[in-house]
Structure formats: C-alpha cells, structure tokens
C-alpha cells in the first residue's frame, strides 16, 4: 500500500514513565493501511531545526487512530513531546516493509512464535503481537534494569506469556535477553517450524540472528538506522546484505536474519 503525506491531528501525547511517551494521532488512512513493523516519518516542528523527519514505528492502531510509543532522547523527540492534543503533525506513512505473519501450523508448546524485544523494541512488536490471533507468541523482553522493562503488561494483557531478562538481574533472568532466548530454545528443542521476531539494539539483533541460524529457525529483525528521506530516495540508510546494500526505509525495516551480513 502506498504511503501518503498528511496533516494528522494529535489526539493525545502523554508521558508514560521516565522519558517514555505515548502519542496518538488521527488518520483513518494510515490506521487502515498500517502493517506491524511499518513506520511513520514525522516532521516534529515547522522549523529547520531539527531539519529531518523522525521515523517512529507504529505501536498500534484502533479504528482511525495511530498509536506511537517513543523515548525522548534528543532534540526531535523532545520537541515532539511538547506537541499538544489538537495540533497537527506532518506525517508520512505508512512506510517500509513490515513483518510477515506466521502460518497456522507453527507450534512451540502452544506458541506460534517468539518475539524478542530489547529496549524500545516492544514498540513495533506489540502491534505484531496484536495481529497474531491464531496463537499467542512467547514474549522475551530485555532491558538493562527493571525500570527499563517496557510493554510487559501490554503483552500480558494480550494473553501472551512474558519472560524478562535484565543485565543486572533486578527482574527475571539475569543476563542478556539473547541468553534467555538460547535457554528457551534448548528447553523447547523442536524449533524447526518456529519463527523469531525481534526488534532492539543492533548487537542484540545480530545475536538473535546467529541463534536463529544455529537452530535453523527463521528470524525477522526490525532494524533502525538514521534516515534522511524514509521513502527510498536518498540511499542514506543502507544495511549490508547478501545481495548488496539494502535500504532500511524501503526494503526494510524488517529483514530476514539469513539475509543480513552485519
């Protein structure tokens, strides 16, 4: 489905906790077309500072509303967090290739798939989990510490089992979420027709891809990269693959783990 450039009315923009925010805007067009893993590219102000749009993954849709989950990290997201309900945002979307949903036959102890979320990675994966209605995926969430564990309640509310890994052991498994993933796969031992979906920091995705390949499991990874245009024109956001450089904005942001050469 083709993207469009629209002026979308902000419905709500609220701090969830710490630097984490939820924003909802009105767009029947984007809400109707959006697929899990796709993103929108937002001009946060009318000024030339910051110059570029900010790509944010789609966290969910409800009738004509599009929901975003973002962390205030720099100038762009700080300005976005100051935007008020009723104001209009210049939004381009939906953009990129999202996740492919698994077929019916996939099972792992009742789980169709494993979703691995590192840091803000829960933002697109919650949208994916909502669309996995045939069987509930198993969710693995990784964070540095307990207060940085995101989206756990939302995943649980969908009926999914959630396992947590923290670097400091303040919640769940002590260690990397990828170590937890290895442990889960060892215990399951029948991962042949299972899919892994992951979003998080690049080193985590690389580790997930290796674990998936070693276990002969398909993995779909959602990548992040600085973008100038978001629509496949500038060739700025490329990632190395077996078939050369590919654009994160247009060929991705979701790539097969087998395809990437890191």
């Amino acid at each position, binding site marked *: 489905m*083709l*993207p*469009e*450039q629209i002026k979308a009315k902000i419905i709500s923009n609220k701090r969830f906790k710490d630097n984490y925010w939820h924003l909802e805007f009105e767009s029947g067009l984007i809400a109707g077309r959006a697929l899990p893993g796709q993103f929108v590219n937002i*001009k946060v102000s009318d000024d*030339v*500072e*910051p*110059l*570029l*749009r900010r790509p944010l993954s789609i966290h969910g849709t409800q009738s004509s509303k599009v929901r975003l989950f973002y962390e205030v990290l720099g100038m762009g997201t700080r300005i976005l967090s100051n935007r008020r309900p009723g104001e209009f945002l*210049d939004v*381009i979307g939906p953009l990129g290739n999202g996740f492919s949903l698994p077929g019916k036959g996939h099972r792992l102890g009742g789980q169709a798939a494993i979703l691995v979320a590192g840091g803000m990675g829960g933002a697109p994966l919650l949208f994916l989990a909502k669309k996995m209605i045939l069987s509930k995926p198993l969710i693995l969430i990784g964070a540095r510490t307990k207060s940085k564990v995101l989206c756990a309640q939302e995943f649980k509310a969908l009926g999914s089992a959630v396992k947590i890994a923290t670097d400091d052991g303040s919640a769940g498994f002590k260690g990397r979420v990828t170590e937890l993933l290895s442990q889960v796969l060892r215990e399951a031992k029948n991962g042949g027709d299972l899919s892994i979906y992951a979003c998080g920091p690049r080193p985590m995705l690389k580790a997930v891809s290796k674990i998936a390949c070693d276990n002969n499991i398909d993995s779909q990874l959602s990548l992040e*990269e*600085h*973008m*100038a*245009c*978001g*629509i*496949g*024109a*500038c*060739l*700025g*956001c*490329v*990632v*190395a693959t077996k078939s*050369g*450089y590919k654009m994160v904005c247009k060929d991705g942001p979701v790539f097969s783990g087998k395809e990437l050469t890191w």
Partner: protein
Amino acid sequence: MKPDLSVRIGKFDLKNPVMVASGTFGYAEEFAPFIDLKKLGAIVTKTITVSPRLGNLPPRTCETPAGMLNSIGLENPGIDKFIREKLPFLKKLGIPVIVSIASIDDPGEFTVLASHLDKIKEVSALELNISCPNLHKDKLISQDAKDTFELVSLVRKLTQKCLITKLSPNVTSISEIALAAERAGSDAVALINTLGGMSIDIDKRTPKIGSWSAGLSGPAIRPVAVKMIWEAHNKIKIPIIGMGGIMDIQSALEFFIAGASAISVGTANFINPRASIEIISGLKAYMADNNMRDLSGLIGSLRAC
C-alpha cells in the same frame, strides 16, 4: 494576468524553472505517491556511472544544525541498467529529463556515458557531476579551471545535447571555474554541489559518517550558494541553475534575484516531498503580485541596498 514561467536553459525549454536536484529525488518514481511529477520543470536523476556502484560504507547520513551530511558515494546501477530499468519511467513523464553523469577513475568514462545517452531523444540534457565530494579524491575536476575546461571540451565534442556542468563550492573562485566551463562549451552551470563537512560522535570519538567526511547540504549552506550564484552571474553569460538549501518559495526567490535562471530543490525533497510543487505555485503568486509577465524581470534583479 497569468505569468509565463517558462525559461530556456541552453538548448531546451522548461515550462517552469523549478527542477529537482540530483541525488535527492532518486529516479522520480520514489516521489510518485506524493506529487504530480508532470508539474516539475525538469528532473535531474541520481548520478549514473559506467559500472554499477555499491556506494560508501554506512552510516551515510547525519543531521547537523539546519542541515545534513551525506556520503552516499554515487551508489547507482550503472549506465546499462539505468537505461533498461530506470529511464522508461522517466521517459513516460513527458517532462525534460536531465541525466547526471560522473567518472570514477578516468575522465574518459564521461565519453562512454555521453555516447550512450546522446542517442536517447527523451534525455534533454546531461549534467556533468565533476563535484561529488564523496569519492575520496585529493582534488575534484571542478576544483581546477584547466581540468574543468578539458573535461567539458571532451564531452562537448561527443554530443549536441545540452550540457550542464555542476560545480563545487569548495574553491577559491567560483567564477573562474564557471568561466572555464562556459569557454569549453557548457550550455549552463549548476551551483552549488555540497560543501565538504564532517561531524564527530564525542562519546565514541568516531566520525558520524562511515567514510569520515561527507557533503553538507540544507538551509545551513544557503548563504554560501546565494553568494556564489551572484558572483558567477556577474562573470558568465550562460544560465545558472541555482541550488543549495532551497526549502520554500522565499528561499527560491533569493536564488533567482541573485542571478539563477532556474533552481533545483534538493535536501527539501527529503523533508517535504511536495516542496518543489509548492515553490512552483509560490512563484506564480509572487510574479502575479509583482506584475511580472515573465521571469526576465526577476532573474538577476538584485539592486544595491
């Protein structure tokens, strides 16, 4: 009164003077969901080289104050695949197509490119990109008046097509280089390409761009571009296509007043895909408000303050 926006650039006519800059508009099809491409004055393609190029190591872009750095490194499918796969879409649009071309190792590559494109009637002009800052060269062709003269002369012998020479702002005297292009038979000059720039991640103490240095574009470079267009306009007779941080009609007008006969929208395409179309309507309104019948009253109309 409906203003006449048409302008002649060397050997071809544009229905309006608003083009899109090479490397910022892909091969046009990327923008089809957002604008009516047929409304543009002309399209300049991403630069094409003889052989396919993978381009530079990522990360390739980063944001800077009111601007951005890019180091794409002329990633492109090569001339054969361009003609086979990208040109058919451009031909169908029915507006002037300007193909940007560059050499990598040897200026002789321009002869291969020019002779391929000379035969294609839908190609209105060739833009000689002798000013890409991202090829890790010690010196660009457009940083030397003699090299510029020789290169343009070489291509001039091979084709009757309109030649536009794109120049680098990283020079001591832009008018000296523009004059060399004019004397060698260039039909127009395009200025400016990006300015060399660099940005550093202070936590990692690494460059923010994979190839270390890059080209700066966006509103940050606009005053540099306007001054260079004014300087060149005072010295050369061939038309100037002005670019460098044009975001909207106000910034576009500065370029016309400084002496540009046409303008190219570059980085703005990334931020607002409709920028070029909005500038065309803004120009119509400005000309009507100022009782301008055509562009001749606007181009180079700068007065002393």
